[in-house]
Each structure stands twice: as C-alpha cells, then as structure tokens.
C-alpha cells in the first residue's frame, strides 16, 4: 500500500497541515484508493511546511509547501508516483541538501517515523541504547555518558554524566528524573519537535537515566503553550507502558521506571530548574538558592536529575553507538551534535542538527539563506531572550559554548533569531527589559525593579533626554542586575541589552534607526 506522510508537528499544523490531510483523505476516499495517510513529525524544513511525502519502494518523495488548494492538482499531476515535474515537487526527501548535509543523531527518526509506532521506532534503531544499558551497571552507564562529552542542552552546558554521577552517589530511597521540556526561549522549538516527532527517544533516554542513577520515577514538565506535544507524549507514555518499556520491570529486566507529564502554567522562569521543582511541588515558581543542588535535594527534597529534553534524547544514540562515536563529532569542549534552530526573518527556517563548529555566518547565510525579506541581515539573537545580539561583524564566531562566551554571548538552547536592517535595536533592548519585568519570579530586587527602571531609561534615551548620562545609567543598571541576581533571568537580561548598545550604538542616537531603515 502506498503511504503518504503529512506532519502533525505544531509548526506544520500552524500552516494548514490538518486541512491538507483532510482534503487528501477525502480525495482518496472518493476514488476508493488504497492509500494510508501517516501523520509524522516534522523533518525540520519548516519553510517547506506542510511538507507532504509519498513513499514508494521505501523511498520518499517530497512536496511542499502544500496547501489544501494544491491537493487535487497534485493528484492530477500524479504525485502518488513520486518523481514528477511540478513546482511543488522536491524529489527524494533524503537528497534535499538542507537535510542531506545534516548529521542527525538525536533527530535520526524525527519526521521519518509514525511517532506512535513502537514498531517503526524499533525498526529504525530505537531501543538499542536501552537494551545495551540493561546489560551495564549504573556506573558503566554514567561513565559512558560522561565520556561522550555530552553537555546539558538546556543552556548552561553542564556535563550530563557528572550530574548523573552525583545523583547515583546520593543516598535516597526515592530518586527522580525530571525532564525539562519548558522550552520558553523565543526562537526555539527543538524540544517540541522531538516530543511531537519521536517521543519514544525521550522516554528511552529517561529510562536510561533512571537505570543509571537508581531513579524509578520520572516527570516531564512542559509548558501549557505546547498542547500538541503534551498529547503526543501522554499517548506515547501509555503505549510504552503497555509494551513494558515503562513500568515495574523495564523490558522484563526487573528494574522499575515509570513517568508522567506535568504541565506548567505560563511562567517562563519555571524553565529554571529549581523554580520548576517548586512548581511541580505545587508552589509558586520561585527560584531556590543553590546549594543544595537539585541532584542532592531536588523534587520533594530528594535526589533529582533535571535535564533538558535534548540532553536526554541524545543519550539513546550515545549508548547505542558508544561514547567514542558521539565524541568524535564537535569541536573543543563542545562534543557531539547541536540542534540549531533558525527562526525569525530567515529564508530557510527550521531545525538543523550538525556537529558543533560551524561559524555563525555559515549558519545564517549558507544554511539559513539569509533573510526572508531579502534585505540585509542586521542582527541575530542567539540563545533566546537572555542571549546577546550579534552583528554581522561577528559572524566568524564559532558555534560552541566557549567561543560564544568569549564574545559575551551564549548559545543557550541554540535558537537563532535573524533580523533584517529594519530592526530598531533600542526597541529590542527595551523588549528584553520588558520581558524580564513580566517574567521575573520576584525574589531578587535587581531583577524585580531593575528592568522596570531599565525601560524608563530606554524610553528617555529614545526621547533623547540626557542621552549620555542615561546610557551610563543603563550600563550600571545592567551591572547591578548581572551581579545581584540569583538566576540567569535577572543575571543575563543584560546580555541582549548591552550587546545592542555595544554593537549598534547608532540606534541609541536620535533618528538613529530611521537612517538605517531608509
């Protein structure tokens, strides 16, 4: 039977994938055709969504972006035969350069398989990591992860194996694995894509983390802005439980691990791990002082691994293929692959998994194809709302944790938001302050009051009131926030603000941006 793949990834849904699927199903029904529609995850080529694929002899042919209005025309043109001449025909999916040039380790199956089919999952290499982990001691699993060089993908880049070792060594009758799927950074959607496109890899990664540390319960905390991801994950967890991948005896090993989904309630700060733990406990999402580390006193005061979705989803491949294989990719102290997310004003928007080590310019211009508007790139914000704005002059910066830190930036969760020359950087700096003011948990004075003052100061600069002294004041305010805040929300908000000031001083002069926009 012919199979047609139409993504149910939220990005694809937002541009009409459901309508395409409905129209296509109706057409197949009308003509009594034996064609099965599979709702897969996204391949990550979001500018081509909805991306429809036809499978012929285990080869997949892509068409996109397809709207429901294109369906009958595509059919008449013979798209079910795969290789046709048509403006929407893209040929073999696997040969599209954007996809072909990637190194897909974590996203190996994302967009390829039916997210709810364990059979598909296994047939494409799934479960090999867990099966191997079940033959190893907890210490062996932990050292494999440590040796792989995997660092936390949630932003801070802390070595995952070292964190796991702390939890393994900690005393506790109950330990927990908490998957941080709060993904609040603008410009990021990598966690969402895994949850919607390959949920079993995350479940497998969490189960391996449980085996490695002696944790038998897991929680996946995600945001209420992700209803589709929540549905897919909940269904996948049920399937995994029925199949014995979760439960009292994981794959018949006699070792227990089970998990459930928890939903946040619209608070960015709850992505911070200790705030998240408070939220899970039913408290206000106030950040906790460290120590104690969550690894020692986490959820309900017990030893807890908190890891980002991608850290956990990278583990099955590391166990299946070995630490050396994973470590071989990358540069410096940034090992393995990173799921770069290209967003905003960029031509080829989407997810691009590759080894660390490309330059920012290669990513934005060569992979991203420059701006969507066709105007010159002016700034790119890397690492979410707490990340710095980079000018084109810094496009030689290499994509790795240390190289970005050396240029007063951060890669964070690897989201890259591109802006063309119409952007007003004073406005962006003001937004960074506004965001901090809206989302602050309120514990530290600099983070609670600072951004409100920051907005006032920026408004004065915009009105050209005592500009020089106000800019000086802004710098000192940023210093206070940087050094007087408990967590990165207050502490890193100065990054976008100061980078905007430093790299785009013309926008902080009267009439500055009007010139640029002309």
């Amino acid at each position, binding site marked *: 039977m012919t199979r047609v793949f139409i993504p149910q990834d939220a990005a694809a849904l937002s541009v009409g994938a459901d309508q395409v699927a409905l129209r296509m199903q109706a057409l197949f029904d009308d003509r009594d055709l034996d064609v099965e529609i599979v709702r897969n995850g996204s391949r990550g080529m979001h500018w081509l969504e909805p991306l429809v694929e036809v499978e012929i002899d285990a080869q997949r042919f892509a068409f996109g972006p397809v709207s429901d209005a294109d369906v009958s025309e595509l059919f008449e043109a013979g798209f079910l035969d795969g290789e046709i001449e048509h403006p929407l025909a893209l040929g073999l999916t696997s040969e599209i350069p954007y996809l072909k040039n990637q190194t897909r380790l974590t996203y190996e199956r994302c967009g390829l398989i039916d997210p709810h089919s364990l059979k598909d999952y296994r047939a494409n290499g799934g479960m090999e990591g867990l099966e191997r982990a079940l033959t190893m001691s907890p210490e062996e699993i932990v050292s494999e992860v440590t040796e792989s060089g995997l660092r936390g993908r949630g932003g801070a880049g802390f070595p995952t194996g070292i964190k796991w070792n702390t939890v393994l060594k900690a005393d506790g009758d109950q330990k927990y694995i908490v998957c941080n799927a709060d993904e609040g950074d603008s410009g990021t959607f990598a966690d969402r894509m895994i949850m919607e496109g390959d949920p079993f890899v995350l479940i497998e990664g969490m189960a391996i983390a449980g085996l490695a540390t002696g944790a038998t319960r897991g929680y996946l905390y995600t945001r209420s802005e992700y209803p589709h991801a929540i549905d897919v994950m909940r269904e996948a967890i049920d399937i995994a439980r029925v199949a014995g991948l979760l439960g009292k005896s994981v794959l018949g090993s006699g070792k227990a691990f089970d998990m459930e989904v928890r939903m946040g309630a619209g608070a960015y700060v709850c992505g911070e791990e200790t705030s998240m733990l408070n939220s899970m406990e039913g408290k206000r999402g106030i950040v906790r002082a460290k120590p104690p580390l969550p690894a020692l006193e986490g*959820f309900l005061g017990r030893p807890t691994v908190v890891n980002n979705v991608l850290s956990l989803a990278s583990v099955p491949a590391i166990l299946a293929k070995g630490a050396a294989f994973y470590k071989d990719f990358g540069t410096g102290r940034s090992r393995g692959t990173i799921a770069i997310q290209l*967003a*905003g004003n960029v031509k080829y928007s989407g997810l691009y998994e590759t080894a660390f080590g490309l330059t920012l310019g290669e990513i934005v211009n060569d992979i991203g194809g420059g701006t969507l508007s066709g105007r010159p790139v002016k700034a790119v914000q890397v690492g979410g709302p707490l990340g710095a704005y980079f000018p084109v002059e810094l496009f030689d910066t290499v994509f790795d944790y240390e190289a970005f830190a050396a240029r007063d930036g951060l890669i964070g969760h690897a989201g890259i938001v591109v802006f063309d020359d119409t952007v007003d950087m004073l406005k962006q700096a003001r937004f960074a302050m506004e965001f901090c003011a809206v989302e602050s948990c309120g514990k530290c004075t600099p983070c609670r009051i600072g951004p409100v003052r920051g907005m006032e100061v920026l408004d004065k600069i915009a009105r050209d009131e005592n500009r020089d002294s106000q800019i000086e004041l802004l710098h000192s305010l940023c210093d206070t926030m940087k050094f007087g805040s408990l967590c990165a929300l207050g502490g890193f908000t100065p990054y976008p603000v100061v980078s905007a000031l430093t790299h785009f001083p013309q926008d902080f002069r009267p009439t500055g941006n009007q010139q640029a926009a002309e």
Partner: protein
Amino acid sequence: MAGAMPMHEITERTAAIVDGYLHVEGPLLPILHDVQATFGHVPDAAVEKIADLLNLSRAEVHGVKSFYHDFQTSPAGHHVLKVCRAEACQAVGGDALGDAIQKALGLDWHETSADGTVTLEPVYCLGLCSCAPAVMLDGELRGRLKPRDAEALAAEVRR
C-alpha cells in the same frame, strides 16, 4: 462561564476535581489547571475549597494561583486568542500583527470583550518561531500571519 454558577456547585465540582488528584505528588498545579478549564477561571470559592482539602492556607493557594499567568481571576471570553509577542515573531512583523489584531477586536492585551466573546492575551513564544508570526486561537495554531489576516481572525471569533 462560572458567573452564574451557584456557589455550592463550584464547591462541589472543585471537591470532585481535588479528589481525583489526591494520589499525585504535588497536586496543586494539576488541580488549578482542571479548575481553570472547568470554570474558565479560578473562582474564590474554589480557592477556599482547595485550601481546605489540601490542608493549606487560603493565602498559600491564592499565592500559587496568582503567580502563574494561566490562572485567571475573572472568567475568560468564549474564545481566547493568544498572540505571540516574542523576538522571532517581532522579526517578521509580529508587532504590526499584534497592533492590527488589537484594532480589529477593539481590545488591549489581557482584555475581554464586553459581550464575553473573546479574550486577547499576549504570549511569549508558541514554539512556532520558524513559521512566525504566530497566534493560538482556542488551542488551534496559526502561523505565517500578516497584519491583513487580523480582520479575518476577528470575524472568526465573532461568528
């Protein structure tokens, strides 16, 4: 939704919700979500009942409720339109889209129309940054919008 609901009904339904979560580790957020979904907001009577059943003070439950943007004090409109205001959407005309939507609905952020048809909420990223600018209407996603789509959105919620 809950405006006309008698107090005892709020209390009873809240008690039933709480009952379903007593086995859960850290039940308060799931309970508040359920209450919000049931009544369209978190009524004071529900706060009181939850506090009572979980052995917390009313101030504690209120404190948690008020911390999170999702939990509302007054009933939301029949439709809820969430418009992304974060950076990736800004980069492709998100501000202009937001302005056009405000104008088309005649509402400011966080406002509900007088007839209770629609509530307009800002959100900071829907994870659709590669198909920006984006909005969520009652859980349904829309991406790659243009300011001119605002009128159609407004017409849709008024229908």
